[in-house]
């Protein structure tokens, strides 16, 4: 390998004493060469993001680099540079793209000004303002944004997440840096947009022969773009090597576990369960449009969430509803839970009409249908003990407090948390544990239908697979019917025996996972499949 563009030797990042552990990163060494994409992969808390920030000296206050560490860029050790020298280098020789496009741009400044700033800061060639403007328009065009002249004059809030990330990339590449640090640039984006950004980074890297350090937690992404892979856990490198070596023959058992946990690779059910009795849940011609009025004269903005949805779910079936953000999948779940009222259409549950029920009927209905939400930190009342949260449901329907708490303890045991959790508060649990508590709370009322709205999206891959396994077990054991809402086709394929694909409030296709993956009918399903990161790699794996 030619001498490396960037060589990190023995990097240790010291956390402030109040932190939960001494080092965020311990004695990390890795090299990035010219014209190469190195993927740094690991779960949350592995220190992968800290490493990238350390290179550019963007560590948060009170977090320092151990004196022994060395970060050498073309011969100069960055850790020894003073602030002025470091500033000269940032955005010029090394630049960085961040995870949250929505908040990464200054909301009060035009796009053009923010992009131009990157050049103005390093204007060694003394370009005139108009020359800079032209360079900005050129780079914006290069990252594939439509009508660059119009983009330059608009404000961040007028652009979508994907477009803003393209602006960030344009800003980063304006000074033709030799090294690009990309800290999970596509995690916050929709699958289809993620695919476009990944392709963009690959093409730009190849054209400019840059070194790229790409940080991600998703092995699918690694499979798609990585030349070399570095796997991290708790601040240490557990394994390092070329993509094929690491993915095909992982040495370290942690890597093996991570790859195994990637959803959607196990045997998929191919056929419907075949039961044709009266469906448990039947939705006919459901319509819902959100209307937001911004000004007296400005036209009200409308968003169509449901445009004539027909869906029926058999008892005991697990139907997953897949779609990008804005497709209306979440609203559908909330309408079934009667949290949002539809404009028109009917919903029948076990033969009874759901909409327009009187209070008593609604109460009875509520008992049979429960929901689990996405954000573990927002779905539990911080001021309420976990036992009470679970027991409240049954107590409302007449159970005594003692019985309800006993049942709660049993449920906590069943979801793998142990009865002692009853008297503890939510902030004492991790994200995965909290989702287990939410599941226990949902099951306390012994519902017939369980709706999981992106229930695992916020979890790390390994924990994600454990929770999915738990859900599958409980469903079989209690004969539950489940509607699983997700944006990740792989998770949908893993858990359900029927996949429904939604786009802009309409169901475009429905089929068993096996059929869908084998020959998708609808064009949109094809683009969704195509956009799934690491699809062909894992499929070969599957096929091979």
């Amino acid at each position, binding site marked *: 390998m030619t001498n490396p563009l960037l060589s990190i030797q023995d990097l240790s990042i010291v956390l402030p004493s109040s932190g939960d552990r001494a080092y965020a990163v311990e004695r990390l060494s890795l090299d990035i060469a010219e014209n190469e994409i190195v993927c740094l992969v690991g779960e949350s808390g592995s220190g992968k993001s800290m490493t990238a920030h350390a290179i550019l000296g963007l560590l948060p206050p009170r977090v320092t680099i151990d004196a022994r560490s060395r970060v050498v860029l073309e011969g100069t050790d960055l850790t020894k540079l003073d602030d002025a020298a470091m*500033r000269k280098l940032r*955005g*010029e020789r090394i*630049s960085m793209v961040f995870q949250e496009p929505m908040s990464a741009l200054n909301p009060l400044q035009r796009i053009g000004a923010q992009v131009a700033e990157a050049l103005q800061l390093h204007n060694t060639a003394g370009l005139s303002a108009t020359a800079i403007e032209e360079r900005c328009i050129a780079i914006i065009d290069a990252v594939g944004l439509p009508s660059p002249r119009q983009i330059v004059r608009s404000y961040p809030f007028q652009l979508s997440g994907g477009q803003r990330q393209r602006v960030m990339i344009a800003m980063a590449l304006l000074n033709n840096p030799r090294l690009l640090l990309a800290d999970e640039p596509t995690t916050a984006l929709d699958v289809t947009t993620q695919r476009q950004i990944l392709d963009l980074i690959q093409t730009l890297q190849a054209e400019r022969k840059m070194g790229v350090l790409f940080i991600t937690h998703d092995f699918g992404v690694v499979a798609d773009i990585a030349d070399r892979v570095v796997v991290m856990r708790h601040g240490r490198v557990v394994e390092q090597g070329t993509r094929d070596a690491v993915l095909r023959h992982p040495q370290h058992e942690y890597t093996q576990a991570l790859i195994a946990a990637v959803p959607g690779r196990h045997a998929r059910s191919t056929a419907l369960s075949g039961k044709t009795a009266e469906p448990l849940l039947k939705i006919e011609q459901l319509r819902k449009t959100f209307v937001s009025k911004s000004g007296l004269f400005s036209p009200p903005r409308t968003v169509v969430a449901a445009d004539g949805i027909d869906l029926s779910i058999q008892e005991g079936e697990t139907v997953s509803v897949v779609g990008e953000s804005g497709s209306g999948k979440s609203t559908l779940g909330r309408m079934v839970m009667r949290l949002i009222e539809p404009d028109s259409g009917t919903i029948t549950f076990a033969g009874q009409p759901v909409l327009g029920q009187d209070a008593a009927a609604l109460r009875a209905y509520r008992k049979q249908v429960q929901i689990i939400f996405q954000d573990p930190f927002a779905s539990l009342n911080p001021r309420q003990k976990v036992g009470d949260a679970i027991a409240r449901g049954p107590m409302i329907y007449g159970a005594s407090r003692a019985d309800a708490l006993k049942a709660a303890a049993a449920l906590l045991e069943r979801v793998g948390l142990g009865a002692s959790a009853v008297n503890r508060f939510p902030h004492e649990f991790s994200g995965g544990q909290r989702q287990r508590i939410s599941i226990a709370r949902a099951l306390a009322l012994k519902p017939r239908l369980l709706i999981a709205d992106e229930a695992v999206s916020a979890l790390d891959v390994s924990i994600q697979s454990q929770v999915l396994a738990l859900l599958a077990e409980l469903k079989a054991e209690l004969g539950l019917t489940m509607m699983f809402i997700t944006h990740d086709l792989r998770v949908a394929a893993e858990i359900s025996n029927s996949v429904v694909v939604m786009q802009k409030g309409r169901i475009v296709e429905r089929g068993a996972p096996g059929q869908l993956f084998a020959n998708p009918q609808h064009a949109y399903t094809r683009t969704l499949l195509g956009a799934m990161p690491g699809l062909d790699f894992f499929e070969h794996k599957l096929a091979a």
Partner: protein
Amino acid sequence: MNLQWLQGLGALGVRLAKMVAVVLLIAIFNFMLVRAAPGDPALVMAGQSGATDEAFLKRVRAEYGLDQPMPTQLATYLGKVVRLDLGYSHRQQRTVLSAILERLPATLLLTLSAFAISLVGGVVLGSLAGVRAGKLSDTLISLLALVIYATPVFWLGLMLVLLFSVQLGWLPAFGYETIGVTMSTWAGIVDKLKHLALPAFTLGMLYLAIYARLMRSSIIEVSHQDYVKTARAKGASDSRILWRHMLRNALLPVVTMAGVQAGTLIGGSVVIETVFAWPGLGRLTYDAVLQRDYQVMLGVFLVLSVLVIFFNWLTDLLYRVIDPRIKAA
């Protein structure tokens, strides 16, 4: 382009309609409140001017329409308010409007200068403290802000008078201008400024403390935002980041608070006008309340409420200048 212009007009129209509605609501609210007072205004009028016989009382009641049933009194009153006829003050022997207009410039001068001092001072000190969070200058400014915030404003006024005009003799202790001495326009302005200095500064100090504390926490909040990290990643220096990115964003909550505080700022002017003998609306109200001069009380309340709405509109304008999103929405 005309869509945006139409929207602008629409927004202005809404604001004007809101202003009229609020003024009418306040008029009704004041009217009820003032009539709830135990004292009988006619008697007060008689009592004050020494005329004490029944005939005089009857004449005053008739003149003010105090004998008519309440709804008609309210209706006539609202009718007049719309025509800007705020009634005749028996006490001042002239129309309420002229009494108010004569005192309005003094109050405007005081409140606007206090508003400017507090906002500019608050922003500067607040951002200084915010940028140097945790260091000595931060703790000093925060402590000073806390102490001023906790000081009774009239006591502060009295102490400043003691210091600046009695001990040091730099500034006049009270009044609006030196009277009886004809001065050239320039000397007149300087003289007016010297009289304005202490009252405006005292009234401004309290709100300066409030805005400084708010600006400090706002700057700290903004420093955690992602776009600040982006700017650093571009190689921008801290000072450039502060001026180009942080200040404007940090100003937004401060300006909103300034709008909300407008009401209390004008309320505060009453005390200041008493301590510094400043012939403004605040003191006119205080005298009117004590002399039960209903017409003046209602009139001043209306004008002050319109003044508060004016201040809200002013801060709203300031907000639009800082935040382009609203215009372009």
